[in-house]
């Protein structure tokens, strides 16, 4: 089973829920941190990293001895990532989406591919959790291919928990797509509600079952709870604002370690998700 944890709004507690859920369930859980722009799960799990792999995406290299400067590569490229100017071909690797169109269209096979570094995937273990995260290279604009590379590390069986990036655009879709359940984490504020509505829209566009964790449940108003009821999104857990939780978080401590009474609550959260997934039928198994 694959559970993705997403939010719309950033800073609502996705990583807190993902890491505590993974550790509360103990052995044989895999956690994939797919927030590759700003991965944070390792700051709470403190994993022993055992492997680092560089991830690249193919980009064109032009052999100017073979090139006839016909300009077809520049015409097919939808991203202005390769331009022919007179007797020069200029590939702009940072704009390239790796579609392979220029290489396929070149009539004289003057184009081959090299790799642009997207970032790294690091993996290891912590608290019995099998840990994998991606770190986008600073200056790299495209996170979805790296997120897909992290997703490719999903184990064939057992439980996988995915910490997704914030927002509702392509990076989040890459992290949520094809998972069995999306756990949305929000806070009961106007910003939290607004972004939750967008996130629910994204989850529904993918046709996935979802449920809600309301974090800092007592700080704002009732609008999130009312919305959840109207939309039929079950609230599976509420975490009150507790300065002890906020301070433990600030130091990089897990809630289930700092306040052990939370461990059974996260186990219950998982049981509630598992019941919904059993009911709707797991897609990934």
């Amino acid at each position, binding site marked *: 089973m694959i559970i993705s944890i997403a939010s719309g709004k950033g800073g609502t507690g996705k990583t807190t829920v993902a890491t505590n859920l993974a550790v509360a369930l103990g052995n044989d859980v895999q956690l994939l941190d797919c927030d590759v722009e700003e991965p944070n799960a390792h700051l709470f799990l403190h994993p022993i990293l055992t492997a680092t792999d560089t991830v690249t995406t193919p980009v064109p290299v032009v052999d100017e001895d073979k090139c006839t400067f016909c300009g077809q590569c520049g015409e097919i490229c939808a991203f202005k990532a390769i331009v022919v100017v007179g007797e020069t071909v200029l590939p702009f690797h940072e704009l390239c989406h790796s579609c392979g169109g220029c290489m396929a269209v070149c009539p004289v096979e003057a184009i081959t591919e090299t790799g642009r570094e997207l970032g790294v995937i690091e993996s290891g273990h912590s608290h019995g959790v099998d840990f994998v995260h991606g770190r986008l290279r*600073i200056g790299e604009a495209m996170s979805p291919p790296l997120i897909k590379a992290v997703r490719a590390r999903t184990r064939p069986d057992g439980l996988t928990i995915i910490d997704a990036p914030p*927002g509702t655009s*392509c990076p989040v879709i890459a992290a949520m797509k094809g998972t069995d359940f999306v756990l949305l984490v929000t806070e009961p504020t106007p910003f939290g509600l607004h972004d939750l509505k967008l996130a629910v829209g994204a989850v529904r566009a993918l046709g996935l079952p979802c449920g809600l964790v309301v974090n800092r449940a007592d700080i704002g108003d009732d609008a999130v709870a009312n919305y959840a009821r109207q939309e039929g999104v079950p609230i599976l857990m509420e975490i009150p604002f507790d300065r002890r939780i906020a301070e433990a978080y600030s130091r990089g401590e897990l809630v289930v370690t700092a306040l052990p009474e939370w461990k059974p609550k996260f186990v219950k959260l998982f049981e509630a998700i598992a019941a919904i997934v059993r009911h709707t039928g797991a897609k990934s198994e």
Partner: protein
Amino acid sequence: MKELIIISGKGGTGKTSLVAAFAALAENKVLCDADVDAADLHLIMNPEVRERHDFVSGRTALVDPERCTACGTCREMCRFDAIDEDFRVNPIDCEGCGVCVHFCPEKAIDFPLNTCGEWYLSDTRFGPMVHAQLHIAEENSGKLVSLVRKEARQLAEKKGLTLLLTDGPPGVGCPVIAAIGGASAVLIVTEPTVSGRHDMQRVVQLADHFKVRPMLCINKADLNPAASDEIAAYARDRGMAFLGTVPFDPVFTHAMVNGQTVVEYAPEAAATRAVAAIWEALKAMM
């Protein structure tokens, strides 16, 4: 004209609440919400929309079943697995590269433009505002960020205003890169947590990469005073301007629930005074 962009790396550090407060304090400005993926500034600014425009960017392949002979060329050539066994394109997976369109021997694939969002020119009680909303599950957020920044600049020029006050997106990827390039000043709002610090350092590296020197302030500083001091020391060591701290205060949430800035909701609160002090420091830096 000055353009100040406020970013954070990590989400939820209070970026938008600070931008809203600055909006109440600043003069002669255009507000710009460049967090187009999950825009929130309008929830406090309550803008009256004057102009609404479609954001059209990129294309999506569309196979015409009448013309398709199911030869399989498109599926073979698509690197994004966006075409299923029945030769239907999944628009969420389609990258818009047009390789299938070009190589289809029957010319059976259309390639219409995408409307992937909307952008708005609005009026608020604090002056004009340019904002946008990317449609759900869409791409090209970086291009929409560039567009709202450009429109905000044009509006400021037209109205003779001297400051662009821009709420930026979280992260370090495409929208953030589009938000900070060419800005005259970047302020990072962080928080004294392990993740706030980690994400701030990555966004500082990004600013370095694009030769922008960011300034720094810390929100919710009293949640972990020792971590807050370490972040301030980090800023000084790197030669970044450190503009101050704001204490954790529920007035930010209460003001938001009321659709107000903290300057309006609680002008005398310690947190509001701290924000005002940071604004004064910012003005001096710019």
